[in-house]
């Protein structure tokens, strides 16, 4: 429909309404801008505060970081502690088994000695194993060699020839002897590989 709009609103009222509308809109936009600015300002301030706190924490962390020499010294100290701990671990010797004692003695016997008896007894105080060897040797030198060999073994303590007398065996003169010694049964510290005992056919 081609019907014109007959607007009877006077020009001055139109202008006044337009001005008032602009004022309202401007005021509202200004208010929104103010709120927006305040929001952005608050956000910026908060961000700056957080950044400042992060910077302070970073500075503190930097200040507390040890120097290179301190780190090297600490590492050397820890290395030495580790070495000591490994040495202790390596030096720990568990109690020797009776089979190992027998195997060791058998392994140490000189060529001209024959064992006629072996007694193993354990004692609780001190906790140790009492070993008594009885045998026949071709000479006193063989008995002395066996005593030295046993005494040289770190696992055996108090090697003593308790009896040694000459006797005859199958028409020959031999030395009948008795040797006693103790084997500690507690965990002990030794230099690594110092306590060598025969175990199941090997050393």
């Amino acid at each position: 429909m081609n019907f014109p709009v007959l607007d009877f609103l006077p020009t001055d009222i139109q202008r006044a309404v337009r001005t008032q509308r602009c004022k309202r809109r401007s005021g509202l936009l200004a208010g929104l801008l103010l709120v927006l600015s305040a929001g952005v300002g608050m956000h910026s301030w908060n961000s700056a505060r957080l950044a400042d706190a992060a910077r302070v924490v970073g500075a503190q962390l930097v200040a507390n970081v040890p120097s290179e020499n301190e780190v090297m010294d600490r590492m050397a100290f820890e290395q030495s502690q580790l070495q000591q701990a490994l040495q202790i671990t390596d030096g720990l010797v568990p109690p020797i088994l009776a089979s190992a004692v027998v195997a060791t003695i058998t392994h140490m016997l000189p060529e001209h000695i024959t064992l006629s008896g072996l007694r193993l007894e354990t004692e609780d105080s001190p906790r140790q194993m009492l070993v008594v060897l009885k045998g026949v040797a071709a000479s006193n030198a063989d008995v002395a060699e066996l005593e030295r060999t046993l005494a040289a073994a770190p696992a055996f303590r108090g090697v003593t020839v308790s009896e040694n007398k000459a006797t005859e065996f199958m028409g020959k003169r031999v030395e009948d002897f008795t040797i006693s010694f103790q084997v500690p049964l507690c965990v002990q510290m030794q230099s690594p590989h110092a306590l060598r005992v025969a175990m199941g056919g090997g050393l």
Partner: protein
Amino acid sequence: MQRFKNILGSRQTIVSVDFGTDAVRVIALHQDADGAWRHQAAFTLPAIALDRPIADHLALGFREKIREHGLDGARCRVTLSANNFHSDLAQLPVMNDAELAAAARFEALDRFGVDEADVVIQHVTLVQQSTDHRDVMLLAVPQKIVRNAAQAVSAASLSVESVEHAAFTALRGISRWQNQTQIGLVAALHLESTVATLMLMRDGVLAHARCIKGDWSAALAQAPTPYGAHDADSIPLDPIDSSKSWRWSCLAEETLRCLRHACGETMWPTHLIVSGPAAGDDSMLKALQGVCGLPACCADSDRWMQGSNNLQGEAWASALGAASLDIKYMEVRRAA
């Protein structure tokens, strides 16, 4: 928040205020997300006499209602009832638009006998029937009426967009929502309590307009004007207490005379569409139909808008028609 949206001009809401003789009608239309328009609020207030400053209690009530419906700061279109206007038809020589406006203004001042500073004058050029002259509808409304209306609206926190003649906005609504007005000769009658405006459209263009003074206040809800207080030129609803069709005979006969004057004997309107606060009477339609010899029907303005089932009668035609202008602008803007 709604107020801020209204001030920022999010034109999803259209407000229209009709200062009728019987009541002030306010309607707010809202566009849904799917583009459909439906009325968000519609309420009436007691009639406001615009020839004097608005009373405080009325202004307060108006403002409260506007605030209650969340329409603060919204732009609104105002319509004034026809009884506030001086109107006349004039024939002016063919001239350009600027000269025609000046001539119409001069002619209106001369015919209405008013001071130029006291009135707002507009004119409508009717469809051209002759090459040697132009038919012009002259309209003038007192400045104080317009200013008081604008003042009332501003006091209610609304922002006035335009002030228009109620009958012509109703015609705009009819043209938009009635499908039968675009082709041929169609008559529309906007009936208010004291003025009936007869408009004739030829192929969707205003061809003739005539204001008929009368007293049809009995058809409104309010009490009728005392019989003795009638203007000497006005047509009474005769007899006022009658419920028969012929009580509207005077109006129907005057309508017939106007139609004969406008159409002659050659071409007769295909039908007559009636709108306005006083148009809810079936007997009036029968009288118009019988006397004028053409189908008469109501504008059905209560069905123009979705969700407007409670807009009963034809009283909201002006407000809806005024709002239809914004709807049209928004459709054009959206299409662009």
